[in-house]
């Protein structure tokens, strides 16, 4: 088991900058999800940590040992890192037991010990008695569990998950999420979990690193990401947040301040160092918006989408047609396209002034 330090890592592919000055400090035994839209560099990060790609700048330290960096580049086969691949990458020409026992065979573990450890690993993922099967004769979930067993049998210091649920159907995903959580609890291994699915990341991770165009946008706990996004990208990326222009009217007091948004004055959460300014941006979510009889912001409905038990309303402020708003309206209330209504902002978060990522 070991912690992982990624220090100022930069990686170019020809003219394309895949990662730019990314730093992450992952504690021993921590479960970290790396989250971002496709093309944000998360797979590159994983391949750098595994050693499949070489970095251009910075260093990667696993368990206190420099693996990639100035002068050092430990090849993947010597990093003692486990990977659970997106498409499992089970060897079709080997049985389940041979797949799981491969790394032990490479390490010249004797036959008896090897068989025992393979058996144990298969038991841990509830696949006792599947040793003689071929991967082709397993279901998707079973293959995933074999991949997990193959990874844990070598007792790696660090386990990398590369979008492991992307190829599974919805029902299986929930079951495998539980499996991964249990796996982490049981082994206490440090885990880096690559995904583009926020719900997955939120459910599993101790902390989430959000990547955007090769830069680290924020590295924090799921709750902090949701409640206190560090910048506009995170604010709009996580849970469909709306980023609105606002004036901060007063400095922070007890974690909140007075703000004017689209003409409406309200009290929002903010950082303790927030000061009065006119160019602020705030983050509000659908849940923070209430339809009111009077006051609030005048809006016009663009589209109403029935969602069962209620509707998602897409609208814009009458004064500012360029801003998109959305909120949920429970039945039996209805708002048709073109209708006008008034919205009050109950709460929200003042996005801090631009600075370095993370905090």
């Amino acid at each position, binding site marked *: 088991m070991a912690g992982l330090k990624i220090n100022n890592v930069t990686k170019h592919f020809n003219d394309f900058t895949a990662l730019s000055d990314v730093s992450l400090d992952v504690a021993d035994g921590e479960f970290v999800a790396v989250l971002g839209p496709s093309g944000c560099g998360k797979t590159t990060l994983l391949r750098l940590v*595994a050693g*499949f790609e070489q970095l251009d700048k910075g260093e990667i330290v696993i368990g206190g040992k420099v693996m990639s960096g100035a002068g*050092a580049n*430990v*090849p*993947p*086969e*010597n*990093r*003692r*890192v*486990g*990977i659970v*691949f*997106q*498409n499992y*990458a*089970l*060897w*079709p*020409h080997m049985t389940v037991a041979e797949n799981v026992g*491969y*790394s032990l065979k*490479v*390490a010249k573990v004797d036959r008896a010990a090897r068989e025992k450890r393979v058996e144990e690993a298969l038991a841990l993922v509830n696949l006792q008695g599947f040793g003689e099967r071929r991967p082709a004769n397993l279901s998707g979930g079973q293959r995933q569990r074999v991949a997990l067993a*193959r990874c844990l049998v*070598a007792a*790696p210091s660090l386990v990398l998950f590369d979008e492991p649920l992307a190829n599974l159907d919805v029902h299986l995903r929930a079951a495998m999420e539980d499996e991964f959580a249990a796996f982490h609890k049981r082994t206490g291994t440090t885990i880096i979990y690559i995904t583009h699915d926020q719900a997955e990341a939120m459910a599993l991770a101790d902390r989430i690193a959000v990547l955007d165009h090769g830069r680290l946008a924020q590295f924090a706990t799921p709750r902090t990401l949701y409640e206190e996004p560090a910048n506009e990208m995170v604010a709009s990326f996580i849970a469909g947040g709306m980023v609105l222009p606002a004036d901060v009217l007063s400095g922070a007091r007890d974690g909140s301040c007075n703000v004017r948004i689209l003409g409406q004055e309200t009290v929002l959460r903010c950082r303790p160092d927030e000061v009065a300014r006119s160019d602020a941006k705030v983050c509000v979510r659908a849940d923070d918006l209430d339809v009111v009889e009077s006051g609030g912001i005048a809006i016009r409905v663009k589209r109403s989408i029935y969602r069962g038990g209620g509707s998602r309303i897409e609208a814009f402020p009458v004064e500012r047609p360029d801003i998109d708003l959305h909120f949920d309206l429970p039945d039996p209330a209805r708002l048709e396209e073109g209708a006008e209504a008034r919205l009050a902002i109950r709460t929200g978060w003042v996005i801090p002034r631009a600075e370095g990522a993370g905090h």
Partner: protein
Amino acid sequence: MSNAKRHQGHDAALIAVVAVVVAALSILPMFRLGMEIIAPQGRFSTSALQSALSSSSTWIATWHSLQVGIGGTLLAVLLGTSVALLVSLTDIRLRSAFVLLFVAPLLIAPQVTALAWLQLFGPASPFLKLIGLAPPLGSRNPLYSTEGIILLLGVQYGPLVFLIVRAGLRKLPRELVEAGLSSGAGKWTVLRTIILPLMTPSIIGATALAFVSCVGNFGIPAFLGIPANYLVLPTLIYQRLAGAGPSVLSEVAVLSMLIGIIAMAGILAQDYTARRRDYRIVSTSMPAAPFALGCRRVAVEATMWLLILVMLVLPLLGLLLTALVPAYGVPLNLKTATSGNFKFILFEHGAASRAFANSIGLSLAAAIFAVVLAVPLGYLITWRERWWTKFLNLSAELPYALPGVVLAIASLLLFLKPVPVIGLQIYNTIWIILYAYLARFLVLALRPTITGLHQIDRALEEAAQVAGAGLMRRLRTIIFPLVAPATLAGGVLIFMTAFSELTVSALLWASGSETIGVVIFSFEQGGDSSYAAAISVLVVAITFILMLTTNIFARYLPSGVLPWRD
């Protein structure tokens, strides 16, 4: 970090070994050939160039090469493309059986094809005698002519064109055809305005390949042209070398360069034409639904099977009947039929039985070597892509892309004198043929390996890497088992091709190192057609047995690896 260093050492060692072997097999002989043309016998001079280029026989042979090259190519393209269109786009029945038989001529050595057709149409033809149509003895075989050579080249390489165009048609997305049909276009209009234009790159590529093959072919013009004193460049080279020996090497080096240039011109013309328009097909999906031929289906099917009858069955029948005839011109019936020819070549004639052993040994060695080298080489080319891996691929392709005569002359030049430093002398031994075979056929195992690797998820190797396996172990336990079916199929293809190879061995053999191809050629030149036919029958039988045996394992192979399997 000693462990890490060791692994990186393995990497570097593998790359170095593979690169050195490929260079020794490809770049070295071509370089030697180039040197000979600029500086014959080590001295800078243009005398060889002048004497070769001022000889009228050179230009006559060049003209003949172009004549049969272009004629054969046109016939092959016409034949191959129309059959490919019929097989791919219509609802004819028994498709895979037809493809198997239609492609067979490609796997039968050209000299065997030539021999078979000669036996079918000659005045001594047992077949024509059987049906009472034989021309009088002593009259000239109609195949000893330009038209004869062109006809047989077309038959030999029509299947080659067929395979390439068929592969192209398989990739044709059915939406494009359906979009055309739903726009109101009839079948013929769709064929003319959509399918054929999209197939242009395949057809052009196939044309270039057929042209190179026709120009470089030795067996057919040797059997059909030499008796009529109609020489093309490869047969001219053979005659000069056979007549005057190594003293004319510098001159024939120039001749082989001429063929090389003609072949290259074909490839470059293809490259140029293909680049002028955008033929890219965006999506690949299900193949288009076949066009129903309706009431014409039976007629089309009958025509296609008639084609098989004429192209394959009758010539092979002619070959078999000749092999059973006791002596030239004797009419064949149940009383005269004999197995004596087979006994003679297998047990009584020293060179013939030696040739069987030699050819089996040579083709096995070439196949095994190619299989062993193709996996690491293919691995470097596909999964370790660097700027220089492209050159590795090109180098491996070169000895096969150029006509066999070119490689044979280059090998002769390379090994005429003992190898410097180690003093190894392989000229006039079987080893020089082996060297040329290794160089020439490597790519036949490399291509399917590359196709196979492209279809395998690289993560399978990476998973082994994170499990701690070094490069050698990964190659052995993961990569080789995964691509083995494709690579081994390439090995079988090499065995079949090398088994009855003639072009290279005709120039490199010596007494004791005869190959089957050489023995067939010698018997035919000496007028012993029955012996030549007997050997050919055995060769064809072995080829068919190998084809059918490999077919059993076809479901483990990526599609397109076995050319004869549809």
